C-alpha cells in the first residue's frame, strides 16, 4: 500500500517535507500553543524560535544562549566553570542526539523547513526555465569550509565571547540574526516583524541588514542553484560532527570499474557532492550529504547506493526504478515535458 501511495522515494520525501514544514512552522497552532514549549528545543534542522507558531526550534539558538548566558559568564569568572554550568548544554546535545540518532542528516534533507522552501523555489525555477548553476569539482571545495566558519564563529565563538563580556552583548546570538530561516518561517506565518531590521545599535543594524540581504540572495539564488544556503549552514557542519554516530547512513558499493565513469548520481546530488560518483564505502557518505536519497534514486545499478538503518536496507538503487524515475525528471531536477493524453488524442486526430 505504501508503494502505491508513494511509488517514488522523491514523492515520499516531498510528502514528509510538507508535513514537517507544517509541524515546524505552524506546529504550535496545530498541536497547542505551548506544545510543551516546543517539542524538543533541540531539533537538528533550522526551525526558528522566533516563529510564534513553531512546534519546535533548532538546537543552534539553544547553543548560542547557553554559551552566551552560561559558559561565557562562567569562563569570565576564571576558574568558576562549575559542572552545572555545562549540564544544560550537554542536555541539549543529548536531546538533539536522541533525534539525530534515528534520522541522522535526514533532518536536513527531509525535515528542515528552509531546505523545503529552497527545494520548492528550485522547482519553480525549473518550471520558469531558469538555468541550473552547479559547482564544479574544482570550485565546490571553496564553499565547503564556510559552514565550519559559520559554526565556529557565529554559533560557538561570538556567543561565548559575548557571555565573557569580551564582545558586545548583541553578539549573543549572531547566527540567528543572519539566519534566512528566521525570516522565511516567520513570513510563512504572515509575521513581518523579523523582516524589519533592528535599528537600536550599530551591531543590531549590521546583523539585521546582513541577514535580510542574505535572505534576499537565497530566495532568488534558489531558483537557479540547488540548496544555496544548505551549503554554508552551520547545522550542516554541526550534524556532520555526529553523522558517523548514527546507524542511519548512505552506503555505496564498489560495484564495477564503470561505476565511477557514469556520473549520474553526481548530477542528481543537490549539494554537488562529486565524491558520490568516485568514492565508495564510508567515503561516499560525505559531510555535506543531507540523505535526500536522490543519488540512490538515480543510480542505474541494482543496490549500488543504499540508504541503510542498522544495516537494513531502507531504499536501494535499481535499474527498473531508475528507468521509471528518469521518465519524470532529469537527475538535475528538470521535469520532463509530459503530454496531456487528451491533447495527444487531438494531435493524432
Amino acid at each position, binding site marked *: 500500500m505504501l508503494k502505491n501511495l508513494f511509488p517514488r522515494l522523491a514523492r515520499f520525501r516531498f510528502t514528509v517535507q510538507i508535513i514537517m514544514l507544517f509541524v515546524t512552522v505552524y506546529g504550535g497552532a496545530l498541536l497547542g500553543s505551548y506544545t510543551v514549549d516546543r517539542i524538543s528545543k533541540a531539533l537538528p534542522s533550522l526551525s526558528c524560535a522566533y516563529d510564534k507558531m513553531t512546534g519546535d526550534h533548532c538546537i543552534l539558538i539553544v547553543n548560542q544562549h547557553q554559551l552566551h548566558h552560561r559558559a561565557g559568564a562562567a569562563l569570565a569568572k576564571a576558574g568558576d566553570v562549575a559542572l552545572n554550568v555545562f549540564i544544560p548544554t550537554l542536555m541539549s546535545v543529548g536531546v538533539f542526539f536522541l533525534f539525530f540518532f534515528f534520522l541522522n542528516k535526514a533532518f536536513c534533507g527531509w525535515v528542515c523547513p528552509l531546505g523545503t522552501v529552497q527545494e520548492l523555489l528550485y522547482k519553480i525555477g525549473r518550471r520558469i526555465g531558469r538555468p541550473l548553476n552547479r559547482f564544479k569539482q574544482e570550485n565546490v571545495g571553496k564553499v565547503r569550509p564556510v559552514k565550519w566558519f559559520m559554526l565556529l564563529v557565529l554559533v560557538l565563538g561570538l556567543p561565548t565571547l559575548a557571555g565573557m563580556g569580551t564582545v558586545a552583548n548583541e553578539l549573543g546570538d549572531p547566527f540567528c540574526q543572519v539566519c534566512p530561516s528566521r525570516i522565511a518561517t516567520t513570513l510563512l506565518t504572515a509575521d513581518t516583524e523579523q523582516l*524589519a531590521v533592528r535599528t537600536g545599535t550599530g551591531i543590531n543594524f549590521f546583523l539585521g541588514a546582513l541577514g535580510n540581504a542574505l535572505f534576499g540572495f537565497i530566495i532568488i539564488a534558489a531558483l537557479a542553484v540547488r540548496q544555496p544556503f544548505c551549503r554554508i549552514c552551520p547545522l550542516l557542519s554541526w550534524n556532520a560532527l555526529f553523522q558517523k554516530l548514527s546507524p542511519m547512513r548512505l552506503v555505496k558499493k564498489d560495484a564495477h570499474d564503470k561505476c565511477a565513469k557514469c556520473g549520474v548520481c553526481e548530477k542528481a546530488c543537490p549539494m554537488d557532492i562529486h565524491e558520490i560518483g568516485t568514492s565508495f564505502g564510508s567515503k561516499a557518505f560525505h559531510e555535506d550529504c543531507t540523505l535526500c536519497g536522490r543519488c540512490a534514486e538515480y543510480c542505474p545499478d541494482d543496490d549500488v547506493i543504499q540508504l541503510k538503518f542498522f544495516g537494513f536496507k531502507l531504499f536501494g538503487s535499481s535499474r527498473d526504478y531508475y528507468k521509471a524515475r528518469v521518465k519524470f525528471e532529469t537527475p538535475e531536477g528538470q521535469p520532463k515535458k509530459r503530454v496531456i493524453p487528451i491533447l495527444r488524442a487531438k494531435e493524432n486526430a
Partner: protein
Amino acid sequence: MKILYSICLLAACAGTAVAAEVQHDHGAMMHSQSKLWTQLPLLKPRMKGQDIASRSVSILPQNIAAAAIEAWSNDLHDANGHRQLSMEMGGAPLDKPATGGFQMLTAREVQGDTVRVASTVHYFGERGGKNPTAMFDQVKHELEIVPQPYPREHSRYRANEDWQFAVRFKGQPLAGHKVVLETSNGSRAEFMTDAAGVANVHVPDDFNTETVQSKAGSHGMRRGADFVLAVSHADGGQQYLTAFNSSYGEDAYSNRSLTMGLGFMLLGMLGAAPLLRKRQAAAKNEEPSNA
C-alpha cells in the same frame, strides 16, 4: 494582620531598592522595577544573582497582605506540584522544579467579607517542562483571571498586541464582566468578557522616551513596564477581587525598520539576479551551466 501587611510593604520597598536586576531577556520572564503605581494587588518576581547559575527568584506581594504564596508547577501530578512558599524579608523564595517551565503564583487575603487574590506567572526556561494547559485550567481560587495562553519562550506581552484572558468564578466563565487594565506607564482601560468569559485585552502603547530604558536585551527585547488586570465580583454576601499581573514590552516594530528590511532584502535579490540569466552556450544546448 496590619503588622503583616506593613512587613510585606516594607519588603516590597526593600526589594525595589535592591540593586539592578540582572535577568535573562526571554520576554515572558522579564519584569521591570516599579513603584507602587496601582492600588491593585500584585505579585512581583525579583531576581538576584548575576548569572543564570547563581540566580534566585523571590516573589514579592504588593498591595496585599499574604502570609504565603501558593505555587503551582506545570507538573500537577508531582508531589511538589502545588506548594506554599513561605514569606521572608525579601519575599517568598521560589524554588525551581526539575522540569522548570511555567509556574502559576497566587496570594490570597481575606478581610471580613472581602477576598482579594493576586496572581502572576513565572517562567523557568528549563528543558522538559510539561504542557501547562492543565495547570492553567485547574481551579485555584473562586474568582480567577487565566491567560489564554501565556506567552511562550522568546515571546512576551507587547504593546499594540491583543491577548486573551479567561475570567471564571468557581470554575465557570463569567460572561459580560468588566476587566480593568492598569499599567505602570499610567494607562487605564476597561474590557468586557464575551459569552465564553474571555476578555480580549489590547496592550496599550504607552511607552515614551522617559519610560523606555536604554539597555537592550540580547534578543532585541527591552526591559518593559508592568500591567495588572483586575476583576471584581459579588456572590453570597462576599466581595471578590482578583488581579493578574505581568510585564509587557514595547511595540514589536519599535526600533525596527520594515522599509530598510525590505531594502536590504531587495539588495540581496539583486545580488543573486545574475544567477538567473541563461548563458548563451547553456541556452543553446539546454544543458545545465556551471558555477
